[in-house]
């Protein structure tokens, strides 16, 4: 399958490429120059370039949008909202049958849900609120929904929250905090990548509808969020369960390196 990856050189992109690189023909794009050692086709392209995104999508079987911009008011809308418009125009123009969209959990489960309830699931109506990242991504998601519904495009959205390194269970910007309170929606980076692979490859007949959203995290005991859907429908099986973060019986190794947890 020929797969166009938008925003493929960010935090998540390398893990997606690692999961899919030997299984699919990838065209990786990002706003930056081609990273050293990348063994796939590469195009320097910003997702907010409508014409460029449409051109890049010619002849592909699937578009994966990993692009994201969080803090800057102008660029957040350019990337998170209009980027999805550009992706969907591209999909429609070239009859691309499937798109995979990504975003943060709170583009759907905003504070109105998270601060009040448990068993939050990906089939709830979006309630992002006004936080810039969630809000701009939710608008992008609405664009995906409208195009998918109107034009029969399969649109699968994978939502993430907290990503963890496998070697110490720390996050991108924080040290690991073993045996203490944790984000009850945490996923190891390699598993984040394999979830995208599952979404790209899931047979159409296994999907309840053409527009589906999934929460991406392994089995953890909090029951704050519900991960049943991605296991059941996409058949995703995460390798890491970040157990040292929530189980006091798990010993922290003297080296601080957890390996396969």
């Amino acid at each position: 399958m020929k797969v166009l990856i938008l925003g493929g050189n960010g935090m998540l992109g390398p893990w997606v490429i690692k999961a899919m690189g030997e299984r699919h023909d990838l065209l990786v794009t990002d706003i930056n120059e081609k990273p050293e050692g990348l063994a796939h086709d590469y195009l320097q392209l910003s997702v907010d370039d409508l014409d460029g995104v449409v051109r890049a999508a010619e002849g592909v079987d699937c578009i994966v949008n990993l692009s994201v911009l969080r803090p800057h008011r102008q660029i957040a809308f350019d990337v998170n909202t209009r980027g999805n418009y550009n992706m969907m125009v591209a999909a429609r123009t070239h009859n691309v049958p499937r798109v995979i969209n990504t975003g943060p959990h709170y583009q759907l489960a905003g504070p109105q849900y998270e601060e009040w309830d448990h068993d939050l699931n990906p089939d709830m109506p979006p309630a992002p609120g006004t936080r810039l990242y969630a809000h701009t991504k939710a608008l992008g998601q609405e664009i995906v929904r409208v195009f998918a519904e109107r034009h029969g495009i399969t649109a699968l959205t994978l939502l993430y929250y907290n990503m963890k390194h496998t070697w110490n269970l720390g996050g991108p910007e924080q040290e690991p905090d073993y045996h203490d309170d944790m984000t009850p929606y945490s996923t190891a980076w390699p598993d984040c990548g394999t979830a995208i692979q599952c979404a790209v490859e899931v047979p159409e007949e296994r999907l309840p509808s053409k527009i589906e959203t999934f929460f991406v995290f392994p089995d953890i005991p909090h029951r704050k969020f519900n991960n049943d859907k991605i296991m059941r429908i996409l058949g995703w099986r995460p390798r890491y369960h970040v157990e040292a973060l929530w189980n006091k019986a798990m010993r922290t190794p003297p080296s601080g390196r957890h390996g396969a947890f």
Partner: protein
Amino acid sequence: MKILIRDGDWWLGEQLAASLGDDGHVTTMVPYSAELGHYEATDELVAGHDAVVILGYNNGPSDESDPSKIIDRSTRQHYNLLHAASEAGVQRCVYVSSLQLFDDYEENLTVTEKWRSLPPTDDVPLLACHLGEIVAKEFARDRLIQVATVRLGFPIIQGDRAAAEASSETAAVSADDAIAAIKEALTSDSLAQWQDIHIQSRVANQRYLMHAAQDLLGIEG
């Protein structure tokens, strides 16, 4: 009241401003060409107003055809405006949208505010108008500002109800009825934190039901 009108520099906006002025309100017209960024200029523009009206569709003076710019206006710039308004303590936003978002439902269906809108992809201004509704709704959800989304019938006919009736359009709204509804939405004490309200004129074979307008704004449906 002091009321800011975004994208009001076309005939409906001008008539709205004139009518509000006749009632003793003060209006600030922010034209379609104005760029609302996220810097101090927008904050200063909004400061001191009691309410904001955004004419989210039927932007008369625009011949903009670039979809990126159209979507940018209805998402980022509306966000900037409402962010500034919230920070300045503005109490209410009336977002003026369009019943064209429901045009794909068959005419015989009893469409009300409880029905889900059906935004198109080919009409980018209408899609953008729908996105603008969501921007405003999320500000209401976060309790930052009260939002009434007034969806106007189509076409909008200059003049009074008789003019709308004469158009033979089943979803038409007269300018007089549209302006009356927007003014009621600005001042009504009956609105919730967020409220959709459908407005068209009473014409033969009237297409859209108007229970919310009757109940909340006292407008004859």
